[in-house]
C-alpha cells in the first residue's frame, strides 16, 4: 500500500530532529531524538496530522548499557513511527511532557514516571496511576533490577487532616463510587462532587486491579505468557492472546496457517458479540432497565454455548497456541454456529429497535455525554466510543491483520456521539460481525492448524495492534533471544477512553454518571495492569488516602460502639 509513502512523509517531517534512523520492520520507522528535541518533533507530527499517539513504552536496557529509553509510538493506518528518547539509567533520566499537545498522553507519561522512574518535566499531575499508595516512591517495578519477589517495605501513609464535617463542603457532597459499588462489577474508585443532583467535579483512581502482569511476564517463558496475557481481561481474553501471539510469531518469523488464522478470527468475532451483548445488558442495568439486561444476557448464553463447544471453556477460551490454534472446526459445529448466528441476528435487530425507539430508554441515553468529533480526536478515544463520534478508528480496517486481510470488514460509525450512538454502534457492529463470520464459515481455508514454534525467539522488537471489542489494543514485545521475553508492554483501549467520562461528568446529573461510565465499556482489569486522579476540582475534595483513613476510623469506632 502507501505504507512506504506515509513513512517517508514522517521521515521528512522528523528530519530536523533525526539523530539516527532505524527500519526494524517494513511498516515501522524508528527515529532517535534527543530529549530536548522531543517536544518539537511531536509538534511536527501533530501539526501535520500524521497519525495519533498510540502509546508510550518505557524500556530499561539494563545496568551494563546504563540506558533507558522512552518510545513514543505514533500510528497512521498500518505505518508506525516510533520516537526513541534515550536517557541514562539514573535519577537524571528526564523527558519533557507532551500532554500540552496531546492531552491523553498524561496517562502514558504517568505510567512512564511511575514504572521506570523517568522524570517527566512539566507533568501536571504526577500522582500514582497504577501502583498502590503504600508503595515506596523510589522503587520502579519495570526496571530490570527490580525482582518481582523482592520484599517491598510498606510506606506509612501520613493521614492528612480530616475535616470535621465529612459529607458536606458548603452545599456540596462527595459521592464516592467504588471500588465496591453495585454499578461497577470491577474495582475502580471515583469521587464525584455533587451540588444537589448536579456533578461539579470528578476524580478517578485506578489500580485496584493492578497485578503486575508486565513484570511477571519477564520471568515466564513464551508459552506460559500466552495464558498470563489471556488473563489480563476476562471479557476480551482471546483478543489479548491473539495480539500476543501475532507479535511473538512475527518475531520468530513463523507463518501461521490460513485455517488457524481464520479460526482465530472466528473466535474473536464470537467474542465481540459476547462482549457487546454483555455490555448492552450492563448498560441497561445501569439505566434501570432490568428486563433488557435479563433478555440480552439470556441471548448471550447462545454465543457462550457456541464458544464453549468450540473452544472448551466459557470465558478464557485458550484457543490460541503459539503458531496456530488448538482445535479445528467440524461441519456439525459450523451448523450450530450458523443457527446461533441466525437467532442472534434476529435478536440484535430487535434490540436495535428497542435502543432506537423505546421512549423511556431514550430519555436516559439520547443527548447524554455527547462527545463531538473534534473532542473525540483530542481525547484520543478508540473503539466504539470513538466510532460513535464519527472517528473511524478500527484497526481491522486501518491496518488489517490476520484473517482480516482476506475477509475484510467495514467500520460502523455514527455521528451523534451520545450514549444512544454508542449503543447503536455496538449493536450494528454485532450485525456486521455476524455477516463477516458467515463469510469466514463459507470460505474456511483448508490446511494445518499449527506450525512448529521454536522455544527461543530471536532477538528483536515488534509491535502488534489488534481491534479488541473495546478498541485498539497495542502490544509492544521485545525479545533478547532467550526463552523469556525481555519486555512486554501493553496499552489497553479503556485507558484511552477515561478522559471522555471525566471531562463529560462535570455538569451532568448524578444519575447519568453510571451510564456514562458504562457507556465507554470500561475494563478496569485491562488498564490496571498497574492508580489515577485526574482533574483537580474547584472545591476541596478528599484525597483517597484521607477518605480511606477516615473510613477505617469511622468503621472502627462504629464497631466498638456496636459492641
Amino acid at each position: 500500500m502507501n505504507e512506504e509513502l506515509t513513512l517517508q512523509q514522517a521521515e521528512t517531517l522528523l528530519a530536523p530532529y533525526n539523530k539516527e534512523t532505524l527500519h526494524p520492520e517494513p511498516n515501522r520507522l524508528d527515529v532517535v531524538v534527543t530529549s530536548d528535541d522531543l517536544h518539537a518533533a511531536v509538534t511536527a507530527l501533530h501539526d501535520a496530522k500524521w497519525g495519533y499517539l498510540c502509546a508510550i513504552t518505557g524500556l530499561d536496557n539494563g545496568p551494563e548499557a546504563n540506558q533507558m529509553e522512552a518510545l513514543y509510538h505514533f500510528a497512521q493506518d498500518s505505518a508506525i513511527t516510533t520516537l526513541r528518547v534515550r536517557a541514562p539509567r539514573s535519577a537524571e533520566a528526564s523527558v519533557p511532557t507532551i500532554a500540552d499537545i496531546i492531552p491523553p498522553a498524561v496517562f502514558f507519561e504517568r505510567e512512564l514516571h511511575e514504572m521506570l522512574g523517568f522524570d517527566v518535566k512539566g507533568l501536571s499531575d504526577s500522582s500514582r496511576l497504577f501502583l498502590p499508595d503504600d508503595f515506596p516512591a523510589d522503587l520502579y517495578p519495570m526496571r530490570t533490577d527490580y525482582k518481582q519477589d523482592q520484599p517491598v517495605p510498606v510506606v506509612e501513609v501520613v493521614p492528612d487532616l480530616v475535616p470535621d464535617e465529612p459529607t458536606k463542603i458548603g452545599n456540596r457532597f462527595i459521592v464516592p463510587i467504588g471500588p465496591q459499588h453495585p454499578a461497577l462489577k470491577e474495582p475502580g474508585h471515583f469521587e464525584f462532587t455533587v451540588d444537589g443532583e448536579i456533578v461539579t467535579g470528578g476524580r478517578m483512581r485506578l489500580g485496584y486491579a493492578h497485578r503486575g502482569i508486565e513484570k511477571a511476564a519477564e520471568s515466564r517463558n513464551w508459552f506460559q505468557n500466552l495464558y498470563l496475557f489471556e488473563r489480563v481481561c476476562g471479557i476480551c481474553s482471546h483478543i489479548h492472546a491473539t495480539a500476543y501471539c501475532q507479535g511473538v510469531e512475527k518475531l520468530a518469523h513463523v507463518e501461521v496457517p490460513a485455517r488457524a488464522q481464520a479460526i482465530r478470527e472466528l473466535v474473536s468475532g464470537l467474542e465481540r458479540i459476547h462482549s457487546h451483548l454483555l455490555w448492552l445488558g450492563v448498560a441497561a442495568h445501569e439505566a434501570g432497565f432490568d428486563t433488557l439486561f435479563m433478555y440480552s444476557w439470556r441471548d448471550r448464553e447462545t454465543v457462550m454455548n457456541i464458544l464453549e463447544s468450540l473452544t472448551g471453556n466459557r470465558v478464557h477460551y485458550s484457543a490460541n497456541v503459539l503458531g496456530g490454534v488448538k482445535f479445528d472446526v467440524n461441519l456439525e459445529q459450523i451448523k450450530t454456529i450458523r443457527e446461533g448466528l441466525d437467532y442472534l441476528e434476529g435478536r440484535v435487530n430487535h434490540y436495535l429497535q428497542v435502543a432506537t425507539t423505546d421512549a423511556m430508554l431514550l430519555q436516559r441515553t439520547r443527548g447524554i455525554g455527547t462527545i463531538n468529533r473534534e473532542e473525540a480526536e483530542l481525547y484520543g478515544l478508540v473503539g466504539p466510543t470513538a466510532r460513535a463520534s464519527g472517528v473511524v478508528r478500527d484497526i481491522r480496517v486501518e491496518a488489517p491483520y490476520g484473517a482480516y486481510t482476506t475477509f475484510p470488514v467495514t467500520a460502523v460509525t455514527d455521528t451523534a456521539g451520545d450514549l444512544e450512538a454508542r449503543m447503536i454502534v455496538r449493536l450494528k457492529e454485532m450485525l456486521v460481525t455476524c455477516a463477516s463470520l458467515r463469510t469466514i464459515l463459507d470460505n474456511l481455508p483448508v490446511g494445518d492448524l499449527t506450525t512448529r514454534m521454536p522455544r527461543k525467539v530471536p532477538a528483536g522488537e515488534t509491535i502488534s495492534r489488534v481491534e479488541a471489542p473495546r478498541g485498539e489494543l497495542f502490544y509492544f514485545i521485545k525479545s533478547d533471544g532467550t526463552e523469556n521475553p525481555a519486555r512486554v508492554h501493553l496499552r489497553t483501549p479503556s485507558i484511552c477512553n477515561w478522559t471522555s467520562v471525566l471531562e463529560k461528568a462535570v455538569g451532568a446529573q448524578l444519575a447519568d454518571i453510571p451510564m456514562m461510565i458504562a457507556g465507554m465499556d470500561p475494563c478496569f482489569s485491562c488498564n490496571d495492569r498497574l492508580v489515577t486522579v485526574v482533574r483537580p476540582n474547584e472545591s476541596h475534595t478528599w484525597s483517597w488516602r484521607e477518605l480511606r483513613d477516615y473510613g477505617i476510623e469511622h468503621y472502627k469506632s462504629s464497631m466498638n460502639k456496636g459492641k
Partner: protein
Amino acid sequence: MEKTMDETIVKTNNMWKQVLDQVQGWSRLNSPWAVHFNSGSCNGCDIEILATLTPRYDVERFGIKLKGSPRHADVLIATGPVTRQARERLLRVYEQMPAPKFVVAVGTCSISGGAFLGCYNCLGGIDQVIPVDVFIPGCPPRPEAVIDGIVQLLTALKSGTYKAPQKPLVVQENWL
C-alpha cells in the same frame, strides 16, 4: 410443686429456644443475600457471577439476591488474587457486614493466586486476608460450579458439619 413449675418453665424456655433456633437456621438457609467484591481479578469470574443472576441460571430461586450494600449481605462473594491496593477495601467490606457472615472465594486466583502467582502486587488469595468458607476453583468456574459451591455451603450449614474457618493468623501487616 414449685420446683416442677420451674422445671416446666425451663423446659418450655428450652423448647422455645430450639424452635427459634430452627426458624433462624431455616431462614438463614433460604435467604442468603450476597455482596460481590472484586479484589483485582480479570473479571472473568465476575461476569460468570453476574450470569448466575440471569434467566439461564437464576439464583433467585434459592433466594440469593445480589445486594449493593455490604450492610444488607450475608455472603461475600470475592474474586481475584487480592492486590495490594484492594486489600484494605476487602477488609473493610468484610468488617461492614453484619454477623453471621460467610465468604465465598470464586476463581482459581482467589484461592492460590492462579495465573498471577508470584506477581509483585498480588497477595495470592482471599484467605490471606479474611477467613474463607468455600473455595470454588475454576478459571473461571462455570456458573453451575458457582451455584454448586454456594449449595455446598448451605448444605454444610444445614447438616451442622459447618465449621467456621480460622481467621488468617497474621493479617500481613508488612507486605512480604
